[in-house]
């Protein structure tokens, strides 16, 4: 590592790709120019349907794949020109699970520590094992682990050398609900200690719960890049849902003016309302509380013979955002 690069470390973005493109030898254009800048200490979620190019982008940043265009840096270190220095600060949890069946869990972590030039530190290994709930399996062979345990060992492996930037490519695939929550807590804890985290996931509530910012890519292009809140405001909508005991045949004018719609069958009204603190969806420009009053008033004005059986609000979710952006695509799955 040269003097200039170590000076840059403090101010440089954690990850920066400029126009990164990848065309595989097979001819597949997996990435067509991705500009992305991730700040130190951020939790960043990269979302996109299968085949969008998420793993390819991560592979380029981690040095596993060569970009066919553009450049990538980690903490200011070029992943090609400063490859060794860049690799030292990166930890990757790959999407594919694979272990050498010869070795035990603790051995795997010791080798990993060693590869990164870290002196053998069993206390650190015990800490990681405990954090990932693998203490009981420390002396088991990797073949003896369940799928979710293997995934957690993969995470332990990526973290054992205390990397400053961690890439988690679908870290919670196959991990049960309890451990997934624990893992989220651990990811937040890592961030508190200053680690930058980049994750991909198909569980959108995971991105919503964890990420400071979200990027959505599809067919190798970055579609949006923003905080979950801003994305929700732009693409999602909060709705009041009202269930009726008897069907309405037509939408009353007052409700239509508020942007409400009648679900097929006439038994449910759905009316968009703004989320406090966020700009209102385009259909109505009023502050939320006033709108809710107007919706209730309009419902109260309905024919008295029509009973209201349920009233709830539906919060906007990243899933709606995701579907709005890429959901049109045939076969697109979150």
């Amino acid at each position, binding site marked *: 590592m040269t003097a200039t690069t170590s000076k840059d470390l403090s101010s440089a973005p954690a990850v920066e790709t400029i126009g990164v493109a990848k065309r595989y030898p097979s001819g597949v254009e997996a990435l067509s120019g991705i500009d992305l800048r991730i700040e130190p200490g951020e939790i960043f979620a990269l979302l996109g349907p299968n085949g969008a190019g998420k793993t390819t982008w991560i592979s380029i940043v981690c040095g596993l794949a*060569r970009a066919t265009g553009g450049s990538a840096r980690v903490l200011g270190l070029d992943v090609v020109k400063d490859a*060794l220095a860049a690799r030292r600060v990166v930890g*990757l949890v790959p999407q594919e699970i694979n272990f*050498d069946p010869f070795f035990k869990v603790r051995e795997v972590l010791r080798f990993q520590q*060693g590869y990164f030039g*870290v002196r053998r530190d069993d206390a650190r290994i015990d800490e990681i094992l405990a954090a990932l709930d693998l203490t009981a399996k420390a002396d088991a062979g990797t073949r003896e682990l369940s799928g979710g345990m293997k995934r957690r060992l993969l995470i332990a492996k990526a973290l054992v050398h205390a990397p400053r930037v961690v890439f988690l490519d679908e870290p919670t695939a196959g991990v049960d609900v309890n451990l997934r929550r624990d893992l989220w807590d651990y990811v937040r804890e890592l961030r508190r200690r200053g680690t930058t985290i980049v994750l991909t996931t198909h569980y959108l509530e995971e991105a919503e719960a964890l990420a400071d910012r979200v990027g959505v890519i599809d067919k190798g292009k970055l579609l949006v890049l923003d905080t979950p809140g801003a994305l929700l405001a732009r693409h999602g909508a909060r709705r009041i849902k009202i269930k009726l005991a008897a069907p309405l045949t037509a939408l009353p004018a007052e409700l239509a003016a508020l942007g409400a719609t009648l679900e097929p069958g006439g038994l449910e009204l759905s009316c968009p309302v703004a989320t406090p603190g966020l700009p209102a969806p385009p259909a109505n420009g009023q502050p939320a509380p006033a709108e809710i009053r107007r919706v209730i008033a309009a419902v109260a004005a309905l024919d008295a013979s029509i009973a209201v059986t349920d009233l709830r609000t539906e919060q906007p979710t990243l899933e709606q955002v995701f579907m709005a952006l890429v959901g049109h695509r045939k076969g697109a799955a979150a």
Partner: protein
Amino acid sequence: MNVIGWKTLIAKESRRFMKVPGQTILNPVINTALYFVVFGYALGGYLRELDGVPYIRFIIPGLIMQSIIQNSLLNTASSLFVSKLQGTIIDLLLAPLTAFEVVSAYVVAALARALTVAVLVWLVASAFTSFHVAHPAHALGFALGVGVVFALGGMVVAIASNNFEQLNLIPAFVITPLTFLGGVFYSPHALPRPWSTITRANPILYMVDGLRYGLIGRSDTNPNLGLAIVVGTAAVLGSIVYAMLHSGYKLRT
């Protein structure tokens, strides 16, 4: 240099074969000992002499060289190819290890295995004959040098191969025939006219003959020419492996 990383890779690669010693050490030792017993004793070889050397002593260096070639080649080729196939190779590709560190660590581990087998074979064979070593420096030089050559060769083959069929191509159709035709069981003089000359194009001949010079002091070729061939081959193969790992050929997509 990432010394800890380098030592770790050597330890890991050595532990790989030490976890299955029956397969990686004992099996080759027994196989070679069987050759020794069958060709040296059972076929009456102990009665014959070849240029004044008892036949049983004549074949020992060749058998040792054969086990060095096979075990160094097999160690790197199988370890690297399997990790490529299983995907565990990404541990190496992500680690801050230079191409030189990776190559040398694999070679050191392969040497550990090949020389363990070689020494055991030599001990068994010497127990039947004699523990005398004619030129220890040459013996050691050829054993180490040839181990390096074939450890490097195993890496080239493992990286270049896309499947088991290709992995076995060079060892089965080039290395094994050249080893058998490399004067393990006979002196090249013993062959009829054109063959005794053609056989001199076989580099393994010089390796077998060189170790024979080192162990029993007898050779048909110049041992220093043999050492030059070993060093030259190691340099060529070493450069190829280095270039492959450095560029990420067939390893980084």
